[in-house]
């Protein structure tokens, strides 16, 4: 079925309005202004507005922002809470914890000069700045497929609006536009659905270690004033995850922002092995630890969300360029896992790509070629140096666990300045890490108490996620039979538990069992696309504007 599509052409197209995409768009306009020339820059964002799909901790290192807007303070960037204290705990059990003496904290975990922020709000601010510079931003429109002609990426096609469950056109059907550009910068964040296709199509991951992921679940709380310590950062490793083992790794965070707001979250590596593990329930019980509950008790939970994050670092970083386009930010995987920070690195990668694209277009290029200058700039930048220093961290944890791996990392970071003469590799794929259900211990999670811990559905409600009801399911099973015929007997269908939004359910009894996908609940975290042991779930963009509506995430 061929459809007549409107076409718009730009110099540069940015796909995704997160820190990488917005910084890139801004840098492009800045470079054009410096040269006294015009660059047409368009940015599309699948969320209903810029910031709606942004979720991060976040302790923010302002290095890249200082470069992008040296006067960000005067311009009113929402960096309101400087970090004033940094506690790191090893949680030994549900009641015991050991605080790590400051002396033994690895350098990347030091947070002096950093700010506790809402990344969603920083992105909203960056969006305003970008629009003021003349970037055309279109939220509510999801890039659905890349336009590739003769092996060259020419832009993207926006998803159609007004298609019903069966794929037929509704009366208000509106075909998606073609947005074409000399260069397209893909900034979809971790496991971007187009980025994934491009990495496969252009074999960008050739020669790199497999990518690694984690799922981060976060809540926003309003707490009683006497429990609130603005600027305090609390990180933790261990319970409810492993401290010495390597079967369920991850870490926790709790940050005190302004206005009696505390954010709290748990990051669970998707290399976990027990199919009965539920990151959501681990997080719920984690909040009952006295070191955490002391801040949350008596408070009100006001926000909930989840997002996968990319943590393979430099060892897993794919090739960044292909004809006509580049990957930036976590679409490539620039997060620094040793610092558990990805915003400043994403911004920097976007800025470097923008500089390369601006030089090319302003120099008269018609595009379509590989922006190899971006790779050169990346290799010569502090971003590369930073990621090089941190390259072993994730691998050490996967191999030796949080305590021992953490200790080796401490030695590397603090004694060797991040420059061990050797590099460790972690070649196991996250989706292949599950043990069989028969070989695994079931986990009995405590019932939520409705005060500190909650059930999944009331949590998803707080993400304000919404999708048009009558549209094709955007979680596409390559083989519809696998969940019940394979995943259920082998792994007790782990999607029921790893999805933090209750999208996947196995309903019915005996032979009538079927796999139900509640796509409307989806918070666009992408965990299913990553962790499904059969790699059978393909996350595609739903109708534009669908998904969570995060405020202050």
């Amino acid at each position, binding site marked *: 079925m061929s459809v007549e599509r*409107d076409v*718009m052409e730009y110099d540069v197209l940015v796909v995704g309005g997160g820190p990488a995409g917005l910084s890139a768009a801004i840098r492009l306009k800045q470079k054009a202004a410096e040269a006294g020339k015009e660059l047409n820059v368009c940015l599309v964002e699948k969320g*209903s*507005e810029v*910031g*709606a799909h942004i979720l991060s901790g976040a302790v923010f290192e302002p290095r890249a922002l200082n470069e992008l807007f040296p006067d960000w303070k005067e311009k009113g960037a929402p960096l309101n809470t400087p970090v004033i204290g940094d506690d790191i705990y090893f949680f030994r059990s549900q009641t015991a914890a050991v605080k790590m003496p400051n002396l033994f904290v690895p350098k990347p975990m030091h947070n002096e000069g950093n700010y506790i922020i*809402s990344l*969603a*709000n920083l992105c*909203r601010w960056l969006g305003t700045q970008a629009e003021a510079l003349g970037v*055309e931003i*279109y939220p*509510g*429109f999801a890039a659905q497929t890349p336009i590739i002609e003769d092996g060259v990426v020419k832009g993207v096609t*926006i998803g159609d*609006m*007004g298609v019903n469950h069966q794929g037929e056109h509704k009366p*208000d059907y*509106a075909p*998606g*536009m073609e947005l074409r550009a000399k260069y397209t910068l893909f900034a979809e964040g971790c496991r971007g659905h187009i980025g994934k296709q491009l990495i496969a199509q252009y074999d960008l991951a050739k020669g790199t270690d497999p990518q690694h992921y984690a799922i981060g679940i976060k809540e926003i709380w*309003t707490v009683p004033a006497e429990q609130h310590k603005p600027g305090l950062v609390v990180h933790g490793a261990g319970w409810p995850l492993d401290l010495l083992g390597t079967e369920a790794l991850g870490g926790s965070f709790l940050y005190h922002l302004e206005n*009696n707001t505390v954010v709290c979250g748990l990051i669970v590596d998707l290399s976990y092995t027990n199919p009965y593990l539920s990151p959501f329930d681990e997080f719920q019980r984690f909040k009952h630890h006295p070191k955490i509950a002391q801040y949350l008790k008596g408070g009100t939970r*006001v926000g909930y969300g989840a997002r996968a994050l990319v943590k393979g670092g430099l060892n897993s970083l794919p090739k960044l360029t292909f004809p006509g386009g580049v990957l930036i930010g976590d679409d490539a995987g620039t997060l620094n896992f040793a610092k558990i920070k990805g915003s400043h690195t994403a911004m920097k990668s976007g800025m470097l790509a923008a500089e390369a694209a601006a030089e090319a277009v302003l120099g008269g290029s018609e595009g379509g070629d590989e922006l190899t200058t971006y790779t050169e700039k990346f290799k010569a930048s502090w971003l590369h140096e930073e990621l090089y220093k941190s390259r072993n961290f994730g691998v050490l944890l996967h191999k030796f666990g949080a305590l021992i791996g953490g200790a080796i990392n401490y030695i590397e970071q603090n004694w060797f300045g991040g420059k061990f003469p050797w590099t460790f590799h972690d070649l196991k794929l996250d989706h292949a890490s599950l043990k069989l259900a028969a070989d695994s211990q079931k986990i009995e999670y405590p019932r939520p108490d*409705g005060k500190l811990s909650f059930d999944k559905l009331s949590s998803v*409600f*707080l993400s*304000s996620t*919404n999708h048009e009801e009558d549209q094709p399911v955007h979680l596409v099973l390559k083989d519809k039979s696998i969940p019940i015929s394979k995943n259920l007997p082998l792994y007790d269908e782990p999607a029921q538990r790893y999805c933090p939004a209750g999208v996947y359910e196995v309903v019915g009894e005996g032979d009538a069992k079927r796999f139900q996908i509640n796509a409307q609940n989806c918070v666009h975290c992408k965990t299913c696309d990553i962790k499904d042991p059969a790699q059978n779930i393909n996350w595609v963009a739903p109708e534009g504007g669908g998904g969570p*509506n995060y*405020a*202050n995430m």
Partner: protein
Amino acid sequence: MKVLVSVKRVVDYNVRIQVKSDGSGVVTDGVKFSMNPFDEIAMEEAVRLREKGKVTEIVAVTIGGAKNEETLRSALAFGADRAIHIKEEGEVQPLTAAKAFAAVLKKEGAQLFLCGKQAIDDDANQTGQMVASLLDIAQATFASKVEVDGAKAQITREIDAGLETLEVDLPAVVSVDLRLNEPRYLKLPDIMKAKKKPIETIGLGDVGVTAEAGTKTVKVSPPPARAKGVMVKTVDELVAALKSKGLV
């Protein structure tokens, strides 16, 4: 014929509203805003009237702070020909809005004023009625069908007992209800074009109005939390529980 459509920027209907802890209002920081859904229906109706050849020009109007320009851009993307932004950073109460809109309506010489029956933020349901009253023109509220014929319009309204059809002389105020139409998707090319359409920005003084503060918000409080449910094991237990609460 020219039609004036008023649009309001409100907290998006998908957002879970939170009441500020001091009870002074609801949280609006970092929250998504969009056009009042009833105003979208009014915009859609204006565009449909133009498509039927009944309307020649659509002017969108709003009153409020700088950010309201986004809402006017949405109205322009729907199909308004131009837009007027009455810029007022302070609180705008229905009477102030009504006086300003009445002045614009008069100045523009529009024959029809379309507005949502109410805004989903304050549910005041006053502005349209007050515009009609201030100008001493006809009004038809909660329209579920609008037909324009020359100097008259027929408006169907949903009432308790069924449908009521009114005929009004133009100019008139029509406030629209949920079932009048289903607003179309804003198409990307239309949003692109809307960026280039003109928005005229004026102040309250330009229309000879001063901000009124006839009402004061004393306190905003959230609805009481739902009480915890009780699990019963048998029908008898259920009946007994219902009886004890005097429900059966």
